C-alpha cells in the first residue's frame, strides 16, 4: 500500500525499531516527547508489513549519495594517494587508493583519469564530500567492485536503476535470454553494460532508454517487440 506525499508531510510511523529510508527525516523538537517523522521529498510513501521500515519512492535524475549504495563513477583527478570521482552528485567523491582489494602502500591500483569504477559509498554526510570504497571493509575482498573496463556507460533515471536492481524486473532477463551480457548497475543513474559486439551493447542501451519511466516508459510486451526490431 502506498500514499502520495509532499515534502513536509508528517508520517504516522511508530515502531520500537524504526528505520527510515530515503525521503524521510526525524524532526526532533526539544519540547516534544515523541519526535515526529516528516517527508523531505514528494513521492509515494511505502512501509514494510510490520511498519518498522518506511521510505518514500520517487523518480529523479540528480543523485544524492547515501551510505552503502553502489555507484558507478568516473575518475576525474588524482589526489595524493587517492582519486576524485564524479558520481553524478553535487560534489565529487573521494576514493582512497588503499580502498581496493589487495592494495598496500607499495601496490596501489593504477587508475587513469577517465576510468570507470564500480564502488560503494562508504560515507555520505551532508557537510562532507562523499567517500567511496572498492572493497568490503570487513572481508577486504573486492566483491565485484573495482575498475570496469570496456563496455559502455548508459545513463538513465534513478528509478530505472532501482528497477534494474530488482530481480523481478523483466528487462535484464529479457536481454540475457537473447545474448550474453555483463552489467553493473549503479544507484546514481549509471549502468555499465558490456556484450560481445557493439550492436548488442547499443541494443541494451536503447532498451534501457525505452523502458526508463523518465523516457519511453515501455511495458514488457512493447519492450519485447522493440527488441525484436533491433536485429540482434
Amino acid at each position, binding site marked *: 500500500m502506498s500514499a502520495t506525499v509532499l515534502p513536509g508531510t508528517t508520517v504516522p510511523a511508530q515502531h520500537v525499531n524504526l528505520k527510515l529510508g530515503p525521503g524521510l527525516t526525524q524532526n526532533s523538537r526539544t519540547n516534544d516527547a515523541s519526535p515526529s517523522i516528516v517527508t523531505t521529498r514528494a513521492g509515494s510513501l511505502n512501509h514494510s508489513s510490520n511498519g518498522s521500515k518506511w521510505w518514500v519512492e520517487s523518480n529523479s535524475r540528480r543523485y544524492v549519495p547515501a551510505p552503502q549504495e553502489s555507484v558507478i563513477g568516473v575518475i576525474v583527478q588524482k589526489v595524493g594517494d587517492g582519486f576524485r570521482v564524479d558520481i553524478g552528485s553535487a560534489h565529487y567523491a573521494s576514493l582512497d587508493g588503499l580502498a581496493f582489494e589487495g592494495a598496500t602502500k607499495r601496490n596501489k591500483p593504477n587508475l587513469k583519469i*577517465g576510468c570507470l569504477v564500480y564502488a560503494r559509498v562508504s560515507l555520505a554526510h551532508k557537510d562532507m564530500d562523499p567517500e567511496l570504497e572498492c572493497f568490503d571493509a570487513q572481508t577486504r575482498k573486492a566483491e565485484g567492485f573495482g575498475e570496469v573496463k570496456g563496455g559502455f556507460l548508459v545513463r538513465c533515471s534513478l528509478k530505472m536503476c532501482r528497477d534494474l536492481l530488482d530481480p523481478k524486473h523483466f528487462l535484464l532477463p529479457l536481454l540475457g535470454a537473447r545474448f550474453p551480457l555483463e552489467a553493473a548497475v549503479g544507484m546514481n543513474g549509471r549502468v555499465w553494460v558490456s556484450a560481445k559486439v*557493439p550492436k548488442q551493447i*547499443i541494443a541494451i542501451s536503447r532498451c534501457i532508454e525505452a523502458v526508463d519511466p523518465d523516457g519511453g516508459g515501455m511495458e514488457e510486451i512493447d519492450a519485447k517487440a522493440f527488441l525484436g526490431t533491433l536485429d540482434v
Partner: protein
Amino acid sequence: MRPPSPSIPEKEFLFHSLKESLRLDGRLAMEIRTPVLTFGAELGWVECALGKTRVLAQVEGKMVKPPPERPFEGLITIHSEISPMASTEYEPGRPSDEEVTITRMLDKVLKRSDAVDKESLCILAGQRVWHLRLTLHFLSDAGNMLDCACLAGMVALKHFRRPDVEVVGDEVTVHEPTERAPIPLAIHHTPFCFTFAFFHDPAIPPILDPTQLEQRLSAGLLSVALNPQRELCVLQKLGGVPLDTDEVVKIVNIAVEKARDLNSIVNVRLKEDWAVRKVEVR
C-alpha cells in the same frame, strides 16, 4: 561545476561503433532525429524536441517607434540564454563558449538571412513599427541545441500572427484577433540549420545531428544553414579538423535534401495546427 569529459570506455565504444557505422540511438550517419513540434495556445509559442533536446520558442509583437536611421523597417530581437536547466554544464550569468556560438548563429540564421520581411512590419513610417521579440528557452540539452533552437525559432516565426492594423491618416487602429483575423508575417524563405560532426579518425564518416556524447567527442563541427530552395545562408566552422572542398560540397548537398524533408514536416505540422484552431472572421 563542469562535468568531466566522457570516460574512457564511453569514448572507445563510441569510436568503435561509429567505425562500424553504428550510432548509439540506431540512426544512420546522415539521419536527423525527427523533430517533434508542439504548439501552444498562443500564436507563436512552439516547443521543438529533437530526441531529448528541447527548446521552447515564443514570439511576441508590440508597437514601437522605429530608430531614426531605419524609419521604414520593423525590429526583430532574439533573446536566448542557456540556463543550468538545460544541463549542469551551463552556469547562470557567465555565458559559455557554446552559448556565444549559438547566440551568434541564431542571429545570423534567423535575422541576418532576412527570413522575415522587415519592411512589412512598418505601420506608419517613422512613427510606428512592429517590434518582434523572439525568446528561446533551452529546456534540455541532449546534443545539437543549435539546430533545435534554429528550427524552433523559425517555426515560431511562421506560426506567429500579428493583429491586423488599420491606418487612416495618422490614426492607427489595432483590431483585436476576435474582430479581424490576425495576419501571418511576410516570410521570404525558411532557413534551417544542420550541424555535422567530424572526427580525427579518417575511418569514421561525418555524422549529422550529433548527440551530446558525439558532440563532445567530435573533433570539429560544421553548421550549415540553408533553405529548401538551395540558397546557402550561413556556413560556420569554428576550428577542428581540416576539410576538403569536395567534402564541404557533399555536406551541403546532403543538407539541401534534409532541408526539403524538414520543410515538409514543418509545413504539415503548421497546417495541422492551423486546422484545429478556431478563427472567427466576421
